[in-house]
């Protein structure tokens, strides 16, 4: 395929293509500008790709064949069926692999795919926010990796390119990073040397923390009661409840211990970086300017030990509901940590933040008619940088919202609250775990808080705007690579 690309103006879009020449002519013609190292024209992915992608399919086909009684009695038919399925699968996979090609142009990476419906996706370098090399479990067994490009305004699957060999993926990542961000980004590329870990959460603590979390404790309690009831009281009806309860025990353990296995926090030039997972290693970078808010969760038993969990809202990381993306997890900053660790992590994310110094305002005592136990734990507080709200007595949630990230403020009151002269104040932040609501405050206090918060947000926006000059070009060659890269709202919408 020859070099020229029909001026990729849009970020992506289906473009009908002429039939691709199956032999990428290795150009002997001398080019005026020497092509950068690693430049390829219409390269294919790794030949093992269809197998790695479709391994589940093969397993299912085989299992279905083996387990099917009627087929087992008729072995010949089973053999033919299995063969047909396998051959068909291999053929489809091979076709899809053959017709998938990627190439780098001057300003974009371009992926052609599909053999019935041709599809060309062009991702411009300046729209790429972050590039990660990921290794799902099966891919890791084969030493392969996929490239994940985080595209502004795009869904999760928009920027995936799989699979390469691990080395190849790393090389391509550096190359793309060079094109997308300039030379400096590669020089202190966070992935080349694995940065010194600040903090590693031991698996034993993950396990302990999960076992002591409210869901698991409640589920275990329910399960024990159920077993006792069944055996001693001869009470069989509730046996069906056992399954969801068992799930309530196993699922969090699996998620925590496997998903967060070896949770490592390290500091890089681009911000804090987390790495976790036993089978599917996941990496996330938290650019300091893009933290919208954070949530500290302390389940009942954890509070006695002094453990808590810290999660973040990050612009751009949370799934876009319009794309049917359900990944609303935000970023996990610390799955479980003791007080000193939490304080250390918070200080790194929001320098100057000291939760213990913020004066908290309790909800008035008459709230006990609405929340007999929980009213003691409802509180809010603010300093010149953040607003903090606390709620919940089984699982205490502390939400921290930055003033200059506040989207909107709402005061609301229901009929019962009105009788007690109470009101809620909600501070809205972009999608994420943070849920900053000052529940059941006195009406006058709440109204004052709304006004004060609006003023604080305005002040914070002004000061932050004058000092950081965030409102710049969509793709500024940011000198330190860490300043907030959020483009103006108008730009974001055009990127969608």
């Amino acid at each position, binding site marked *: 395929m020859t070099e020229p690309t029909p001026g990729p103006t849009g970020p992506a879009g289906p473009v009908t293509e002429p039939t691709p020449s199956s032999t990428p002519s290795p150009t002997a013609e001398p080019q005026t500008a020497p092509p950068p190292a690693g430049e390829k024209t219409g390269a294919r992915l790794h030949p093992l790709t269809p197998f790695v992608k479709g391994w589940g399919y093969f397993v299912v086909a085989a299992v279905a064949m083996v387990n099917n009684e009627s087929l087992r009695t008729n072995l010949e038919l089973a053999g033919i069926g299995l063969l047909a399925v396998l051959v068909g699968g291999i053929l489809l996979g091979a076709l899809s692999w053959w017709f998938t090609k990627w190439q780098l142009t001057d300003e974009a990476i371009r992926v052609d795919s599909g053999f019935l419906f041709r599809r060309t996706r062009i991702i411009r370098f300046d729209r790429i926010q972050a590039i990660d090399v990921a290794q799902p479990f099966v891919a890791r067994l084969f030493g392969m990796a996929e490239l994940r490009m985080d595209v502004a305004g795009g869904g999760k699957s928009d920027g995936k390119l799989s699979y390469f060999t691990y080395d190849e993926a790393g090389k391509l990542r550096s190359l793309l990073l060079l094109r997308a961000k300039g030379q400096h980004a590669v020089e202190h590329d966070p992935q080349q040397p694995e940065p010194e870990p600040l903090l590693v959460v031991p698996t034993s603590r993950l396990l302990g923390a999960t076992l002591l979390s409210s869901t698991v404790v409640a589920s275990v309690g329910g399960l024990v009661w159920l077993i006792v009831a069944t055996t001693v009281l001869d009470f069989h009806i509730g046996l069906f409840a056992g399954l969801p309860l068992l799930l309530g025990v196993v699922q969090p353990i699996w998620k925590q211990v496997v998903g967060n296995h070896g949770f490592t926090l390290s500091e890089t030039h681009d911000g804090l970086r987390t790495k976790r997972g036993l089978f599917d290693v996941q990496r996330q970078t938290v650019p300091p300017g*893009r933290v*919208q808010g954070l949530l500290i969760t302390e389940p009942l038993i954890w509070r006695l030990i002094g453990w808590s969990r810290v999660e973040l809202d990050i*612009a*751009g990381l949370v799934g876009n*509901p319009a794309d049917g993306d359900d990944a609303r997890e935000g970023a996990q900053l610390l799955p479980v940590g003791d007080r000193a660790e939490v304080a250390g992590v918070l200080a790194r994310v929001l320098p100057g933040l000291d939760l213990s110094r913020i004066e908290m305002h309790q909800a008035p005592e008459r709230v006990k008619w609405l929340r007999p136990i929980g009213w003691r734990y409802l509180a809010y507080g603010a300093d010149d940088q953040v607003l903090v709200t606390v709620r919940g007595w089984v699982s205490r949630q502390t939400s921290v919202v930055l003033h200059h*990230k*506040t*989207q*909107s*403020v*709402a*005061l*609301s*009151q*229901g*009929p019962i609250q*009105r009788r007690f*002269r109470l*009101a809620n104040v*909600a501070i*809205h*932040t*972009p*999608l994420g775990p943070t849920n900053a609501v000052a529940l059941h405050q006195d*009406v*006058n206090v*709440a*109204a004052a808080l*709304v*006004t004060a918060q*609006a003023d604080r*947000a*305005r002040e914070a*926006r002004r000061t932050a*705007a004058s000092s950081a000059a*965030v*409102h710049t070009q969509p793709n500024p060659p940011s000198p330190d690579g860490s300043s*907030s890269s*959020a*483009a*103006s*709202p*108008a730009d*974001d*919408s055009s990127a969608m």
Partner: protein
Amino acid sequence: MDDLFAPSDVSWTPVSPKLAAVRRVNAAIIFGVLAIVALIALGMSLGWTYGVLGLLVVAGGFAWAWVLIGRNQRSWKYAEREDELLVSHGIMFRQLVVVPYGRMQFVDVAAGPLERAFGIATVELHTATPATDAKIPGLHPDEASRLRDRLSALGQAQAWGL
């Protein structure tokens, strides 16, 4: 105590009474269907006395809705402060939303067939979070487009990244 949800340091603009009219027509359609269903279903199964009784209950519900809609319409108001848009509404469930112009992602102006027939429109302000509920129904179309243009202009001028 009312002014807690509508601070008096800004000038509040009420929405058009036509909003109540639109909602009453809407309610009339819904209650009308309900009335017919109640009349026929009860009349056929239990006897027409009950059918008429059901009709009366639905009529009572409609009268109640009529009053509530009027009260609710009068509760809607908005104010344009220097940096923020304020929207206040509700009688039973009261709410005051404060949205800085600079946080605005886009503005929607919408009008359904019924709203168009009565000559009103709804302006909705969207920020980066769906939690923001800044919607102003019952605006005159001219006022709606004026508000839209003004909000976009202010949003542009004070635009602020995430």
